């Protein structure tokens, strides 16, 4: 069985300061991991994904995440926050399900607030 825990429901930063959104996962197999972003009243958009290649993954808009198997973590970071980064962020694990399908499981989301 797979699960994902986003450790913070809200993260508040000032513009220009670093961003850290934390995600821990549980998986029986070798998972794929994703971060999606949802801006207000919009659908979700892929930020980045880990698929067992490089453990440090770079995504769009300056975001990156590091896969740490020993810590079962996939934290999302950005060196300098921008006002436009204010959004809801979802960590997702995709693992093997019954019948051979890989069904994604979503975390509950972290709301990133960026102060001027």
């Amino acid at each position, binding site marked *: 069985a797979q699960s994902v825990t986003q450790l913070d429901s809200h993260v508040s930063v000032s513009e220009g300061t670093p961003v850290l959104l934390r995600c821990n996962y549980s998986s029986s197999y070798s998972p794929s991991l994703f971060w999606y972003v949802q801006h207000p009243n919009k*659908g979700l958009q892929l930020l980045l994904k880990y698929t067992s290649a490089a453990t440090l993954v770079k995504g769009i808009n300056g975001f990156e995440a590091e896969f740490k198997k020993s810590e079962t973590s996939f934290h999302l970071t950005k060196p300098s926050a921008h006002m436009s980064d204010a959004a809801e962020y979802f960590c997702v694990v995709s693992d093997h399900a019954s019948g051979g399908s890989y069904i994604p499981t979503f975390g509950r989301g972290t709301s990133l607030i960026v102060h001027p």
Partner: protein
Amino acid sequence: DAGITQSPRYKITETGRQVTLMCHQTWSHSYMFWYRQDLGHGLRLIYYSAAADITDKGEVPDGYVVSRSKTENFPLTLESATRSQTSVYFCASSESPGVVWREAEQYFGPGTRLTVT
């Protein structure tokens, strides 16, 4: 237009009514999904479909029915709407087999905001 669309974008209905939410994608993706988004719960999977005429339950299927007679369409029906089904519903699709499935990105529609009174 290419992409994934949902209709209607907003819907208000009464308890006990049947309502159908539509989802259409133009990429010929094999997999399609329906999620509901509620505050504090993130996205929860209602149903998914691996191909036309193949559907399976997700985490929260009770009270919902799906069908997939054509690859591009995946309607979601609430047979008898209840207030607990007030939510924002998202449809998503993923690339066809041939891509390592668990690595496949999901593409999301803009959502349907449903209110059951």
